[in-house]
């Protein structure tokens, strides 16, 4: 045969490489990815990089940030009404909020995937009961269910995390369930079944590659909601108590000072905003890369 191998220099890329090569072209998403990585690093190594200890109080109260008149370089973002360093408390807040949200997203996604996949692959009474139960849980607003759980278990950071995960879990299970269910009805899954694929194999090779895009946006959604909800509960005073303070509680504790030193309210809010924004841009880029990879 006359096949000339010299012409086939391009290897066919694996879907993952392909997705990556599309993702790489998106500069904004790449930048967001790096910021996200840095943020995660901050969460992990917060203990080592804190400029001051969060509880030490200095004499200078309500210092403005460094670049505003009256600011000092020791306290880059200034101090609060008890003379605690804002930057330190901000980093600690990021650690608690972002770290909590990441942990929670991880747990919710693992549990949710297991439950959702099992439910989708089993038929009959059990699945139907789960289905209706989830439906009922879904129509309780997340804030309400978090409030209920906190009322029952008492306010603390851990309980706040548990409450938020329990209120997000039904959403995740439901979305996974619907996605898998939709895929299961397609012809190629039937073909795989006829090939004798067991359930695990079906999930791994048949379903997951095809629901990747919705998984990415679902994870992003759960993560954003987790951040916003943890900080909302903190803001309402149901989250962290006393010294360890996450971002929402930080805002709540400074509301009274909003006119005298607005940055105490501004910085934590901006931190939350940047976290959510960065992760959103990153996952949007990822999602686009996945879609485009499928389109072509």
């Amino acid at each position, binding site marked *: *045969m*006359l*096949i*000339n191998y010299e*012409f086939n220099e391009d290897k066919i890329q694996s879907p993952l490489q392909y997705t990556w090569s599309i993702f790489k072209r998106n500069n904004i998403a790449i930048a967001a990815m790096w910021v996200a990585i840095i943020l995660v690093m901050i969460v992990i190594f917060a203990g080592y990089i804190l400029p001051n200890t969060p509880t030490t109080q200095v004499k200078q109260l309500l210092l403005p940030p460094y670049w505003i008149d009256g600011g000092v370089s020791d306290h880059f973002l200034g101090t609060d009404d008890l003379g605690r360093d804002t930057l330190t408390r901000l980093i600690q807040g990021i650690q608690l909020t972002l770290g909590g949200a990441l942990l929670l997203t991880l747990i919710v996604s693992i549990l949710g995937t297991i439950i959702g996949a099992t439910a989708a692959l089993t038929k009959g009474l059990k699945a139907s009961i789960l289905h209706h139960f989830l439906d009922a849980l879904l129509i309780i607003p997340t804030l309400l269910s978090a409030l209920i759980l906190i009322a029952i278990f008492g306010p603390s950071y851990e309980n706040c995390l548990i409450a938020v995960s329990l209120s997000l879990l039904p959403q995740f299970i439901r979305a996974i369930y619907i996605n898998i269910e939709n895929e299961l009805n397609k012809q190629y899954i039937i073909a795989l079944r006829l090939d004798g694929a067991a359930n695990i194999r079906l999930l791994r090779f048949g379903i997951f590659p095809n629901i990747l895009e919705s998984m990415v946006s679902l994870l992003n959604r759960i993560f954003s909601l987790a951040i916003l909800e943890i900080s909302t509960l903190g803001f309402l005073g149901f989250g962290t108590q006393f010294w360890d303070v996450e971002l929402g509680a930080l805002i709540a504790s400074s509301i009274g000072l909003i006119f005298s030193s607005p940055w105490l309210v501004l910085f934590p809010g901006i931190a939350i905003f940047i976290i959510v924004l960065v992760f959103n841009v990153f996952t949007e880029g990822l999602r686009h890369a996945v879609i485009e*990879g499928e389109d072509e």
Partner: protein
Amino acid sequence: MSLLDIRNLSIDIATAQGKVRVIDKVSLTIVDGSIHGLVGESGSGKSLIAKAILGLHNASWTVTADRMFLGTTDLTKLSSKNRRRIMRKEIAMIFQHPRSYLDPSKKILPQIREVLPTISIKRRLLNIIKRSPEPSPRLRIKELLHKVGIQNDRIVLASYPYELSEGICQKVMIAMAIANNPSLIIADEPTTAMEPVTQEQIFRLLYKLNQLNNTTILLLSNNFGSIRDLSDYITLIYCGQTVESGSYKQIINSPMHPYTEAMIKTILDFDENISHKSQLYTLPGNIPSANQLPIGCRLGPRCPRAQRTCVINPEPLNLKGHMISCHFPSTDKN
């Protein structure tokens, strides 16, 4: 006289691995009032050419052409609004998967009514004076459907596309296509996924249209055998390159390109005595995927006559309207 004249049409599609030239300098001249068959294997780019003619490309495509004339208007120079107007009047397309080209949330009736030519006010006034009212839209639609061979028009018109079979959807598409009396109909594999009887009906319909209304038809197909006897002119493409183009006689009686020869050999002739279970003739190898196209003549790796010079793109050879793109066309005429 040529109705559609395309010279060196190229389409590049941006993919993650960079630009891929899926259509490479295709030229197409369609004579007014003829049926022109465009034949190529699946994936050779027929639908892409059709979409480029209609201007239906999305942002990731770059379409370039030296010349793209419909009659005397230059399609490449038109604004998108004007182009749509021309398309509405002059060109109609019958798509490959008809059901997906019908709006799923609307019944068939409003969809057909939408493409009916609007009657100008002047004509209406004239009609009032002459006391010969225009037939009502409903009647005209009925007539159209009967023309394409749909008898139970009332049921079809009141259905949503998903309630109809692909064959009926195809007929509806054809009815919509001929509603405007276009001068050119592009039929993109109008008979895929249909049983032979319907296939035959649709081909006969297209033939009748061509004979009675003098409508020019560009017929795309991957089945050389099924359309060759319908076509006045035939163009073969392979992997986005024109291979050979000419009138029916030229192509069938004196094919000069190795690909055409192979295609003709692959058509089963029942007169011929083929011994039971003998191997049928095919070219070796497969059609390459879009990101692994060979350079030069794309048939190269599969061509029985290929030589070293074939890595350079062959210049098309024009012998009295018979175009061949090959360095080594066969010259033995029988």
